[in-house]
């Protein structure tokens, strides 16, 4: 049988638009040192390392090797996992698999990005088919815009509904010292910001960020010796839904629907809205915050604008989403999914300081990729049953 697995430490850099003062390994090292300190263990206690970032972003393709000065991977097993936007969540799922297998007891998981070093749109374009999609591709934001447009047409949502989500996340970021954008915005400011691709304004989307995150996972054999408040991994899931851009159902995230059903079934969650206490959603643009929690089964189709508008997902609400300020406040892409995982773990472990949600028993963290694929993790305070 698989070993039960827990997160026993997390670490993040102070994410910024540019970190010219450090190279990639040095940036990674900041997050690794913070995670080791959080878990109060040494790099010599780590049995294996998983690292990931976006392909083509820094133009360094043997990151597993190149990063060892920062990662601590010297003479250890190191593997790289890279899955686009979901990378940060996929490295965590990979780490969970390694520890659950019983072959490794303590695994260090790293996600990082120096987004300031690349042509983001050029690099992202390499994710799309060169014969069919690339010649008519218009950048990542246009794909998201088409999703929002279809959702609005289907359910009568407005640009204001999207703006409300940005306002929430940017407000939450005020309480997170690690977030990049820590200035409150208003709905009017979102709507007055430049239109990038209808209906998406500049303030509806994430920034570009340099940053790194690290997570330490341990098996049930040592987790409780390392910390008295481990964050237990109850389940993970991921789903892919398309090869070509025209294959997706625009207006619904079917990969999220399928992954959520799988995740909650594995974790024994019957009523996610009641049982989940906090969500760290990989939400690179505002409308994703509406559409995807419907697909997650938190609320029904078309109910998102009202549910969010009434404050249910704000801090202090029924189900706070993105207490960290989320991706709209900070997006070092290869680290972003792992930051969601760190933040969910911090909530379960009671370590989120000013942005702590009280009494978290279950938390969900997610990853979103390219267009339309989903990774998910269910975190819990209680040790899962065998």
């Amino acid at each position, binding site marked *: 049988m698989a070993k039960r697995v827990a997160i026993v430490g997390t670490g993040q850099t*102070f994410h910024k638009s540019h970190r*010219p003062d450090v190279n990639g390994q040095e940036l990674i090292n900041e997050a690794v040192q913070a995670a080791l300190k959080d878990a109060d263990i040494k790099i010599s206690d780590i049995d294996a390392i998983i690292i990931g970032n976006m392909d083509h972003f820094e133009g360094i393709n043997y990151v597993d090797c190149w990063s060892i000065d920062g990662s601590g991977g010297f003479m250890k097993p190191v593997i790289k996992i890279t899955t686009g936007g979901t990378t940060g969540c996929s490295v965590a799922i990979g780490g969970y698999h390694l520890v659950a297998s019983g072959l490794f007891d303590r695994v260090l998981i790293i996600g990082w990005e120096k987004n300031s070093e690349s*042509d983001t749109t050029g690099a992202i374009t390499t994710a799309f088919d060169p*014969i069919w999609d690339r010649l008519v591709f218009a*950048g990542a934001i246009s794909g998201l815009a088409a*999703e929002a447009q*279809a959702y609005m047409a289907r359910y009568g949502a407005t640009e204001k509904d999207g703006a409300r989500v940005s306002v929430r996340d940017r407000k939450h970021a005020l309480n997170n010292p690690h977030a990049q954008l820590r200035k409150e915005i208003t709905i009017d400011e979102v709507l007055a910001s430049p239109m990038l691709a*209808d209906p998406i304004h500049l303030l509806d989307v994430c920034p570009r960020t340099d940053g790194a995150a690290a997570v330490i996972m341990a098996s049930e054999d040592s987790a409780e010796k390392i910390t008295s408040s481990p964050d237990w991994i109850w389940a993970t899931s991921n789903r892919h839904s398309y090869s070509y851009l*025209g294959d997706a159902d625009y207006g619904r995230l079917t990969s999220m629907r399928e992954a959520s059903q799988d995740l909650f079934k594995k974790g024994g969650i019957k009523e996610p809205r009641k049982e989940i206490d906090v969500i760290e959603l990989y939400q690179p643009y505002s409308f994703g915050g509406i559409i995807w929690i419907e697909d997650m089964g938190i609320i029904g189709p078309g109910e998102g604008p009202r549910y969010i508008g009434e404050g249910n997902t704000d801090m202090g609400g029924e189900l706070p989403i993105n207490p960290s300020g989320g991706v709209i406040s900070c997006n070092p892409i290869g680290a972003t999914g792992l930051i969601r995982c760190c933040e969910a773990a911090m909530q379960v472990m009671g370590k989120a*300081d000013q942005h702590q949600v009280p009494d978290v028993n279950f938390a969900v963290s997610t990853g979103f990729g390219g267009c339309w694929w989903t990774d998910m993790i269910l975190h819990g305070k209680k040790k899962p049953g065998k």
Partner: protein
Amino acid sequence: MGTKDNAVLDQGFDGIEPMVFESQISVPYSWWAGDTATYFLKGLRDEKKIRALKCTSCGKTYIPPRKTCPVCFVPNTEWKDLSGTGTVQSFTIARRQLAAISKKVPVIYALIKLDGADTAMLHYIEGISPEKMKIGMKVQAEFAEDRKGTIQDIAFFKPVKEV
């Protein structure tokens, strides 16, 4: 969370202005389209025909044509000629000029489900002002004069009726 340690690192460059290095790399690629896509692209170029492949097991008609049905895992063998008309499933108007956008903005991008197909195609819409775009509108393919065997041999889609 190591907050204090990192705050020190965050304070600046200690009087050292970091140097920056520009990439000197250019990595050209070429991609084989394969016989399925090549048959489709030759149809566009030589006959102004849009062809899709149908799965004889589930009946789903794919565009771009799939050699194997991704769901049934059987070879798709039945080519269908499509009429070139279709319905807009969703769209956006790119307002910001990016290197990836070869036309001058604003550019209308749409997901178009061609009549007789079950999957959509990403392409441009022209011949309509952006403000008049609507999901559900009927559009038809306009072929380029000068066709080279790429997806851009369809120059754009335009509304079926004058709007």
